[in-house]
């Protein structure tokens, strides 16, 4: 069994670009979620507050997952 060959630096840059594309979309989604929730909350519509918080937490977990993969990528590069 051979040890997997680590990604080259160029490959890692490409992977990070892909991760950035996902992260940017997620963060923009969270920004929209926050403003929409704030608008609803100030309008006394509190039904969306907890579902929106849960959705935002899910987005954060996705981002943290990407970050963990990034750390692994860094470690594998040595």
């Amino acid at each position, binding site marked *: 069994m051979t040890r997997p060959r680590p990604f080259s630096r160029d490959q890692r840059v490409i992977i990070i670009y892909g991760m950035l594309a996902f992260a940017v979309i997620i*963060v923009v989604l969270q920004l929209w979620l926050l403003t929409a929730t704030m608008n609803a909350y100030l309008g*006394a519509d509190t039904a969306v507050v907890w579902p929106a*918080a849960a959705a935002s937490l899910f987005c954060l977990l996705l981002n943290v997952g990407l*970050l963990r993969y990034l750390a692994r990528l860094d470690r594998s590069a040595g």
Partner: protein
Amino acid sequence: MSDDPHMGDPRPDVDPRVTSPTREGLAGTAPVSLYVRTRDQITIAPDFKPPEAQPAWRRDFPIDWPQDQYVERRDFMKFLVLTSFAFTTGQFWIAAQQWWQRRGEVPGERRIAAVGDLAVGGTVVFDYPGEHDPCVLVRMSADEYVAYSQKCTHLSCAVIPQPEEGVLHCPCHEGYFDLRSGRPIAGPPNRPLPRIHLDVRDGAIYATGVEWRTT
């Protein structure tokens, strides 16, 4: 000068013509030439020591462009995750606010005025449910009363009742609310004023609750 394209690469040489487990690529099919290290992929520190022997600051502030690009994108990714954390914190701050408000939701009952103290068309300003929640009570007719929060739903200026015209007027931005329903009829506000529930008994008027409305 060595002609070896791998330049000290400890990985074993593989035959590019043969499909074998050693030809590792993203999908196992990439040509082995993809892994030949080119000069711009190699960072040589000024002290010629290997990357793992370099101090942390030199790894964070590389001197060659490809490595600098890699570090910049990597740090931007970290910044985005931090931003994501900040947005999530904001969401939970709103949720905590809502929970805190709901916790102290039953405001209790408060006596506003005696019936005899208020003529038809007369108004009384009072605080309800908290000490800093100004409200206004208006006697519409002999046995009809309405009360609303006095904070305009646009930017929280104090609204002024004008019973003779049947409106509450916000002088800050010329907002108008219908006195009978508390709904906005002109100007920038687009949400109705919170209505104060009233109870008239024993010759006195009591505030008994707040109705937050969105439409």
